[in-house]
């Protein structure tokens, strides 16, 4: 077995089956990228996993998980104006956090080159929306390259890196969920390791680097001039291509994963429209598009999410007085969801119904299956927390969730966390909910990674403006939902051990007067503490902590001395109150046909946090043979 790390550092050219996220890392290595930063978020964490597979001493670039996406962008920018090719990557909504810095990037002469890799999420597979981040490109005059497959992720990054260094400008590489996670054989070129030139090359003469008031205009002009150059590049770029089916009548302009969906749809048709597939989606290659429009009578634009490219194409067609019929989005549904092969079939069918053969669905030949929402894991400390907290608060109280595993508390049977917005928003939303409100207590929740990411300003505001609410910090020691990345209170960063920044002392330092702390497995203690905290008419914080048990049990299983543990139900003692299965609701508890409760031994980790939920002590620990 060759490790991923060994594969990634292969110096000769080779082929390997890899995920888009992994292909990206090889492209970074071949391009001699020197600094890479990120904050974890789906669909991008596997980029960091690939980086981690290379031992630190052999890693050809510096990598860090920064505190949030804005910080990550700043670190990458700082390195790049010192002459190092840098890359920052994060999920779609991460760009909202990074935007204040990101928007400024294109004003700067970034001498080392800088690539912003976005993991956008059409279909909202694991995000709070499916925002179309191409709008940010327009807002900031930043070019966007959009690959469709692991092979293109690899070649597009290399092209972007080359251009970014040449022009000193930031370039966005926009990936989407199923481009990040697609796997296929990729042919990689050779890699010649180079010694890092460590000279800090920052020089104000390369600038200006201070955009302020009237000094902004020359910088803006510089930025727009570069964008003009990129327009010329777009028309020449090898990243755009035409699939010529010899069709003089109809054509399609598309980009990204919808291109592959379209190719699959067209496998079903007799007549095949020609396709112009854009690799550079901002600024769009106007000459290439114009030539394509001129040679077809009708052109359909198949564009996932918003009509970003469609508007620009129609504008150009109007100015050029083209008579080609251009068909963009036709109804609201065209704006929604991922452009899977099924979706592209539907979209195309609305435009050219005769082109596509009918597909027969299953009709009513479907047997309904109960939904399976994501769950907190067996042994999860958050489950104990919600079970205990529910006993301490009233139904009329308002609970505000944040982003993280604890968000899942909104599901039955807990239904704790009735609103959620984005990273770190809970405390300040709760502050607003507490205004003119003496009757309904407001309780906010926040994870520990999110506390550092964007949670602190809301907490400081609650103190500064004397808001009356209780914040419950759900501390599990890691960034759990995205795959257990360390954070500032974990005791180590991506590369080495580091001092813990303790939550409680941080809060003390800020001047929080009422701080409580308990392990969530001490459920009755937590119930009492929350009752007390909620009773105070001032800002109070409860730190409800327990290590992430998924991480813990995975680490335990790797040890040779590991002995699996389970719990059992003593059927003699069980009085069928169903507190374990209906209120505590660990997925381990299973209902039999005769309404007994049984343990699913495949799932149970024997943590025992459920023992205290049984009034008659019918749940017992059992040692495995």
């Amino acid at each position: 077995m060759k490790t991923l790390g060994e594969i990634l550092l292969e110096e000769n050219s080779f082929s390997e089956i890899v995920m888009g996220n992994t292909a990206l890392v090889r492209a970074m290595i071949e391009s001699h990228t020197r600094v890479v930063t990120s904050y974890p978020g789906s669909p991008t964490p596997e980029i960091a996993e690939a980086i981690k597979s290379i031992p630190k001493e052999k890693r050809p670039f510096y990598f860090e998980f920064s505190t949030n996406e804005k910080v990550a962008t700043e670190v990458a920018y700082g390195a790049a104006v010192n002459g190092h090719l840098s890359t920052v990557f994060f999920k779609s909504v991460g760009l909202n956090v990074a935007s204040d810095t990101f928007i400024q990037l294109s004003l700067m002469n970034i001498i080392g080159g800088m690539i912003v890799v976005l993991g956008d999420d059409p279909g909202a597979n694991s995000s709070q929306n499916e925002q179309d981040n191409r709008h940010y490109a327009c807002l900031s005059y930043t070019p966007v390259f959009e690959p469709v497959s692991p092979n293109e992720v690899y070649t597009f990054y290399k092209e972007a890196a080359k251009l970014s260094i040449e022009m000193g400008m930031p370039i966005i590489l926009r990936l989407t969920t199923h481009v990040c996670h697609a796997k296929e054989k990729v042919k990689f070129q050779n890699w010649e390791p180079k010694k890092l030139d460590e000279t800090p090359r920052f020089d104000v003469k390369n600038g200006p680097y201070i955009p302020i008031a009237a000094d902004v205009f020359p910088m803006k002009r510089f930025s727009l001039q570069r964008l003009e150059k990129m327009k010329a590049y777009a028309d020449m770029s090898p990243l755009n291509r035409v699939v010529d089916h010899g069709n003089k009548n109809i054509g399609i302009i598309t980009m990204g994963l919808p291109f592959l969906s379209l190719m699959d749809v067209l496998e079903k048709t007799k007549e095949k429209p020609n396709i112009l597939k854009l690799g550079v989606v901002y600024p769009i290659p106007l000459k290439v598009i114009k030539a394509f429009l001129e040679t077809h009578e009708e052109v359909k634009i198949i564009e996932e999410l918003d009509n970003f490219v469609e508007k620009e194409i129609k504008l150009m067609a109007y100015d050029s007085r083209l008579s080609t019929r251009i068909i963009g989005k036709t109804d609201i549904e065209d704006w929604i969801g991922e452009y899977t092969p099924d979706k592209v079939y539907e979209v195309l069918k609305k435009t050219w119904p005769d082109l596509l053969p009918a597909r027969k669905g299953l009709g009513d030949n479907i047997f309904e299956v109960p939904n399976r929402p994501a769950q907190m894991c067996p042994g999860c400390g958050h489950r104990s927390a919600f079970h205990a907290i529910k006993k301490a608060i009233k139904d009329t109280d308002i609970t505000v969730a944040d982003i993280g595993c604890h968000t899942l508390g909104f599901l039955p049977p807990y239904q704790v966390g009735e609103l959620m917005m984005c990273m770190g928003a809970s405390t300040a939303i709760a502050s607003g909910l507490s205004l003119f409100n003496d009757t309904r207590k407001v309780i906010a929740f926040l994870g520990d990674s999110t506390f550092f990411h964007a949670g602190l300003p809301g907490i400081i505001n609650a103190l500064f403006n004397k808001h009356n609410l209780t914040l419950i910090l759900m501390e599990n020691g890691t960034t759990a939902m995205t795959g257990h990345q360390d954070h500032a209170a974990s005791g180590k960063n991506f590369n080495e051990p580091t001092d813990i920044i303790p939550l409680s002392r941080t809060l003390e330092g800020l001047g929080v007067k009422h701080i409580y702390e308990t392990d969530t497995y001490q459920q009755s203690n937590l119930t009492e503490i929350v009752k007390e905290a909620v009773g105070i008419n001032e800002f109070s914080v409860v730190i409800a902590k327990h290590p992430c048990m998924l991480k813990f049990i995975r680490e335990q299983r790797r040890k040779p001395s590991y002995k699996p543990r389970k719990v059992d139900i003593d059927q003699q003692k069980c009085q069928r109150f169903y507190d374990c299965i209906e209120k505590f609701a660990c997925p381990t508890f299973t209902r039999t046909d005769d309404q007994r409760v049984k343990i699913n031994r495949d799932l149970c980790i024997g943590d025992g946090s459920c023992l205290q939920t049984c009034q008659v002590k019918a749940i017992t620990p059992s040692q495995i043979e």
Partner: protein
Amino acid sequence: MKGFNIYLTGVGGQGIGLLSEILLRGSYHAGLKVKSVDTHGLAQRGGVVVSQLRLGDRVHSPLIFQNEADLVVALECHEALRGINRALKDGGTLIYYNTIWQPLEVRLNLVKPISGAMISKQCQKRKIREISIFKTDLKDPHMQNIVLLANIDKYSLIPGVKKEHYIKAMEDLLQGRLLEVNIEMFEKERI
């Protein structure tokens, strides 16, 4: 070759990722053109996990059209039925591990669970070849995926992919004791 689509499904934590990677690399070692894509992130926490594999020369997206999968591989009963609803073509093949991880609404007693009998009934109706697998003496539930793999090989469910290809794939992905026990289980169950 003509395209062949495989839809793998189960519950987060059942080991779909490894099984999918073995099928992917096994197909590759068999000289087939192959693409795949897995679910990552949020859903992995006890939710439905899906992995899609597409074999063939005229395959573009890693995503399979609805009800155009030739084979559904499921690690759990509810997901087997959901998988054939969503992905399997009429007349296709379902292989599933006959275990139940009850979904939330079943545990809360709001709906009835799915049984093997319901799956069989639906398979008959849609002329689906049904292969149900359960190994009574399996000590480590983490190896249910390898038991399924062994049966995929035993019934030659993926055209052109053979025992040696699966073993080579396992050797790419595992090492040491873990490789040994998995190969041992695979060899034992495929007969």
